[in-house]
């Protein structure tokens, strides 16, 4: 990158791009279609929140970015590009080099992500040694720096602590420190705050946002909590049955939701609801990923369902600022998406 133009191009082009990603798990009994055509781009320094319930394919999608799925049982189609790397085409050896260095992951349960037999310092230093080499002493100095970075109080003492000696919040900070140890450009966070108390959850969210900004990382943050997404996301993608059903800037998706599923999820939260009325729960259950319906996968639970929903996968309707909804009732009015309550366009 010598001249200005190439820098401009690099800034405008997404750092991560996923095109028509499909992931199937194949076994003798059945084929589970976990991800069914997911496409999105993520620019440098941006945070994408993927919202979805269990079985929506959000974690499977994340793991395929790191190629963590068992090879024999998984069929992955589509293209994943991170920086200049084509993830699908890389050899196993180069993939191992990229994991942790170019991109790394923070998991939901810090207790199972840490080895109970080694101290926190050992585990962070191991990652540093593995990727960056140098002496053990330097690696421990770096580990100390990292614990300081994630605001662990009295880091010298915690370096020598075993995972069971730390609280849930401190443990998750240690896992984040480990994930950041090789200065990744892309941080994948799979429900990192779900197992934490509300008071600690907010501490970790504030910390992650600060670090992401300071280090200029891109981040994909998977959660099922819309409140968490509101705290941390630049863009939000709502997943259902392996597809992105709504995508857009955080404010667009959370304040002006267009897909019936996003709307139903927002209506079903207990936040500030009238106590005398039952909650508007979404009836039924998500579809069986072994036998997906032909049309919209949400049709069976949708209160706005019309005949065309059952026929083919609904089209992507895109409006201003890239706000997209995959619904036959979504329409564009004055640049923004507008939900067609009456179902005129859907006929």
């Amino acid at each position, binding site marked *: 990158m010598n001249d200005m133009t190439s820098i401009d191009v690099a800034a405008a082009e997404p750092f991560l791009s996923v095109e028509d990603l499909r992931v199937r798990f194949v076994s003798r009994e059945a084929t589970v279609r976990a991800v069914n055509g997911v496409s999105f781009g993520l620019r440098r320094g941006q945070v994408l929140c993927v919202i979805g*319930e*269990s079985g929506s394919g959000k974690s499977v999608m994340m793991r395929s970015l790191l190629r963590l799925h068992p090879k024999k049982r998984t069929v992955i189609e589509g293209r994943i590009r991170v920086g200049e790397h084509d993830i699908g085409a890389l050899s196993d050896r180069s993939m191992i080099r990229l994991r942790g260095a170019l991109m790394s992951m923070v998991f939901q349960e810090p207790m199972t992500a840490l080895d109970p037999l080694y101290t926190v310092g050992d585990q962070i230093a191991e990652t540093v040694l593995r990727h960056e080499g140098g002496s053990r002493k330097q690696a421990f100095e770096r580990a100390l720096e990292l614990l300081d970075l994630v605001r662990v109080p009295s880091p010298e003492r915690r370096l020598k602590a075993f995972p069971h000696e730390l609280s849930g919040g401190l443990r998750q900070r240690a896992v984040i420190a480990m994930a950041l140890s090789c200065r990744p450009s892309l941080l994948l966070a799979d429900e990192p705050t779900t197992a934490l108390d509300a008071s600690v959850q907010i501490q970790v969210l504030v910390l992650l946002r600060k670090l992401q900004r300071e280090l200029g990382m891109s981040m994909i943050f998977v959660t*099922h909590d819309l409140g968490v997404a509101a705290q941390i996301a630049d863009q939000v993608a709502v997943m259902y049955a392996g597809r992105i059903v709504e995508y857009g800037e955080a*404010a667009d998706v959370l304040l002006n939701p267009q897909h019936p599923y996003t709307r139903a*999820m927002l209506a079903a939260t207990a936040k500030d609801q009238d106590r005398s009325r039952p909650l508007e729960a979404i009836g039924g*259950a998500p579809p069986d990923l072994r036998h997906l319906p032909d049309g919209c996968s949400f049709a069976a639970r949708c209160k706005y369902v019309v005949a065309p929903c059952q026929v083919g996968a609904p089209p992507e309707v895109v409006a201003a600022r890239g706000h997209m909804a995959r619904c036959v009732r979504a329409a564009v009015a004055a640049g923004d998406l507008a939900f067609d309550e009456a179902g005129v366009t859907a006929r």
Partner: protein
Amino acid sequence: MSETPASLRRLAAQDPRDRGGPAQPMLIVQGLRKYFPIRAGLLNRRVAEVKAVDDVSFFVMKGETLGIVGESGCGKSTLARLLMHLTPKDEGAVILDGEAVGGAGGVPLDGLRRSLQMVFQDSSSSLNPRLPIEQSIAYGPRVQGARPKAARARARALMEKVGLNPTLFGPRYPHEMSGGQKQRVNIARALSLDPRLLILDEAVSALDKSVEAQVLNLLSDLKKQFNLTYIFISHDLHVVRYISDRVMVMYLGQVVEIGPSESIYEAPKHPYTRALLACRLTMDPRERVDAAPLAGDPPSPVRPPPGCRFHTRCAFAEDVCKRVAPRLDGALELSAESHLAACHMDKAGSGHSRAMH
């Protein structure tokens, strides 16, 4: 003793199991205490203790839902286990509908378990993986002496009540069901002995949001149908507000504030409650928090701070807070309307500069 709301009185009056009358609380807890010993050394001597539940008093009226909130380690789950007598208590009294539990002349434990049941957080580990769910639900009545046929009929009726088709789901094993369905089974099992008080310990915390709404609606329906009283323990403050009539806030094994749900949420008195409420996340990306309302973790319950246990994290802490532990006065004055806080700022003449003089 103040007036019981008319709705509660009517509920209690309909119930043939009622002993103490409508104004008698379903449950009174007096000075409950549990210290877990920490043993060490050659002689396995008691070197310290975890003060898990330390002098807790409260009551639950009939037909009421009491929400209990607090961070992990505040003693809310230990409290639930003490109420169920799953963990023996060190001190204090549990009075169920006017009768003391345990001891000479009190309600015997199997009687207690008939009146008091619990639903746990982890829906799979609380079910026996080797029992079809119909048998899991019928197990309690069988143990308490029901005939197999009657117990099975009861199980099937309850599955219907919690929204599971008994023919379809009855023969299934827990691993063949989703988290929400398993939690419905746990609720049905808790109801199988026809209890009067249900303790729900983080019963919806592990569920997806849309399933959580279904289960919360189910709980409200069942409460009316079976004339139940709930103790609802959760760390989700939104859910607690939605479901509770009164809310109790715990910190390091003690009750710091208790009162009607509306007034706790609209006008919290204790600084801890205020901070906890500030930790709720909004759905609006324009209203982000830049600094966490509560820094750090709670101190260790092995060596709780002297004076007010919250003073180490409190923005208003003064000298008096470090010396004198504020008391929660009047916790057993049976009024559903009273709003109490264990804070020096709330007590006239406590010596705190913000207290009323």
